[in-house]
């Protein structure tokens, strides 16, 4: 069994409560599979390409069987040439199709930044809106089981600095499906940031096709004493921490921005204005992270509401270690969020 699978299969099936009504429960990966299946079914312009998308594993099960159902022109494997494949997908988008390009590791996407940053993201602006690039780049960050420095990066913060690129990072099955549908329908390059440890998360997912507006966040848990903004997988850790905080008499509001660029400024500002405290939990390294940008926004707009300094809970500014001992020390979790939140409230 592949190593990442060993790791992920050990995780609990974290259940996301209250995302939507109904009693149909799917995992995050099943929700994504359904999004791809429905998008391919509805729109002949949609196709999926990437390294290994049509193999037996089907990108952790998310594309399994789709080639058999829609044919090798619509779901196909590619050479290991991330940069040109991104440009090829972008060119196809310019000519009117809606490609979904998959990088099974976010680290591999670094090879493609010329086409993503210099080309796809700039095209609309550089040509005065004459040519659009409706491209979805889906990336998956791994974690644990010795993934190490080149198989576990979460570089969404770095990419928030790219004008013209939209970035979504859904943390629940409901959002994964709805935001994938939105990303495919959007007329811009959209980076779909996914975390391997979310794949087993479960939640309610309606069977019908639906979309979630890009740029709209959601309050996952209401609270009064502190706002915890959690990015991607850190939502799971934040919700666990919020439970414990409640037991300790602290009422934490958990905000899930869902879209990192452009992010929901209103929901963030309103929550911080109410609680007066802000902790941001991100999956990436601290410096220049999504957390940094969220903190900067808060400093610019709701500084006068803050009762204590803003706190970022991120990975340290080191490459990811492979040693299981160091790895444990590297990743922040619900215990860290809890401890930092208590400090802020008691400050």
């Amino acid at each position, binding site marked *: 069994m592949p190593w990442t699978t060993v790791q992920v299969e050990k995780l609990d099936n974290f259940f996301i409560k209250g995302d939507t009504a109904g009693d149909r429960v799917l995992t995050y990966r099943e929700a994504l599979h359904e999004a791809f299946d429905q998008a391919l079914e509805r729109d002949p312009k949609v*196709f999926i390409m990437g390294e290994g998308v049509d193999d037996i594993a089907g990108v952790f099960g998310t594309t399994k069987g789709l080639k058999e159902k829609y044919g090798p*022109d*619509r779901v196909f494997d*590619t*050479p290991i*040439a991330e*940069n*040109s*494949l*991104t*440009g*090829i*997908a*972008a*060119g*196809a*988008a*310019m*000519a*009117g*199709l809606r490609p979904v390009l998959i990088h099974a590791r976010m680290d591999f996407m670094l090879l493609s930044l*010329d*086409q993503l940053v*210099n*080309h796809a993201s700039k*095209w*609309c*602006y*550089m*040509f*005065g*809106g*004459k*040519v*659009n*690039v*409706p491209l979805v780049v889906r990336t998956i960050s791994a974690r644990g089981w010795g993934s190490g420095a080149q198989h576990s990066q979460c570089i969404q913060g770095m990419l928030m600095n790219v*004008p*013209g690129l*939209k970035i979504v990072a859904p943390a629940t099955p409901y959002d994964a499906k709805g935001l994938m549908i939105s990303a495919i329908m959007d*007329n*811009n390059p959209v980076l779909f940031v996914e975390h391997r440890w979310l794949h087993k998360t479960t939640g309610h997912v309606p069977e019908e096709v639906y979309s979630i507006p890009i740029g709209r966040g959601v309050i996952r848990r209401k609270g009064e004493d502190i706002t915890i903004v959690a990015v991607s997988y850190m939502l799971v850790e934040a919700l666990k921490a919020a439970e414990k905080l409640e037991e300790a008499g602290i009422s934490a509001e958990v905000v899930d921005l869902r879209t990192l660029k452009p992010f929901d400024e209103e929901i963030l500002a309103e929550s911080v204005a109410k609680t007066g405290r802000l902790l941001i939990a991100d999956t990436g390294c601290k410096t220049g992270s999504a957390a940094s940008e969220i903190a900067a926004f808060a400093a610019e707009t709701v500084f006068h509401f803050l009762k204590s300094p803003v706190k970022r809970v991120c990975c340290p500014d080191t490459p990811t270690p492979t040693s299981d001992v160091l790895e444990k020390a590297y990743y922040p979790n619900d215990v860290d969020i809890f401890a930092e939140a208590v400090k802020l409230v008691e400050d």
Partner: protein
Amino acid sequence: MEEGKLLEMYRTMRLIRLIEQRINDEYKYDEIKTPIHLSIGQEAVAAGVCIHLRKDDYVFGTHRGHALYIAKGGDIRKMIAELYLRKTGCALGRGGSMHLVDTDVGILGFTAIVGGNIPLGTGTALVSKLQNNDRVTVVFFGDGAADEGTFHESLNFAALKKLPVVYVCENNYYAINSHQLARQADDNIYRWAENYGMPGFRIDGNDVMMVSEYARKAIERCRNGAGPTLIECVTYRWKGHIGTVEDVGEGYRPRDEYEYWVSKCPLKWYSDFLKAKGVLTDELLQSIDEEINSLIEEAFEFAQNSPKPSPDELLEYVYAD
């Protein structure tokens, strides 16, 4: 080739030459506030290839893109307005000389990153294949782009998928001031094609008849579903890499090399050829020049009298609706 087409190629080459010269002459007035890269000396490549393309075929060019834009039938007034960074420009003044666009004639945008257009054109060719139509894409790039990974990655993919794309390398030997042989172990760009599994040719890029003949076959091959071709057109730019600078002589390109290529002027060769064939006369030459000059005059007048963007438009077009 029929007479009309022969004359059309001449007219295109002459239009490119005269526009480029006019841009060169106007540049000193500092109203064209964008880096320009002139194609004087390389006119035969774009003209010889594009004569076989339909309006709905795609081309992808580079920062040195005026010639291709003109040859593919791009709107001249909008191109000059773009050089003047006016709102009426083909990219609303947001792209400049290096980023020309005209979607009406299959120009989806030129890039200023060396080799960056090669995957994009491979992508539009993929669409032709997936949609089962016979639209062809031609990607134009320089010898410098053969240094880049995108050249190799894209050729591999196009051959693998048998895509309807023609890769046209305009080998003018220089990447800014670096000679090809300072960057590549051998002078053999066209031979990469063989390993990637497609036909590859090296031809005289100053001989528009030869360019046209090889391009015709490659484009036909695409329309018949037989896959991509690489054509290396050996040519030479007369001006320096950028702007209106001359870069011939000590420390730069050797003068005898430059003079050899000027003696191989593609326009002179072709007009002599057409005259010998009886297709072109001095009278016709003159009337073509007059017609072109009035087009150019009109384009420059249009551009110079067009409004510039206003500062409140700064944030528009970051995202498409």
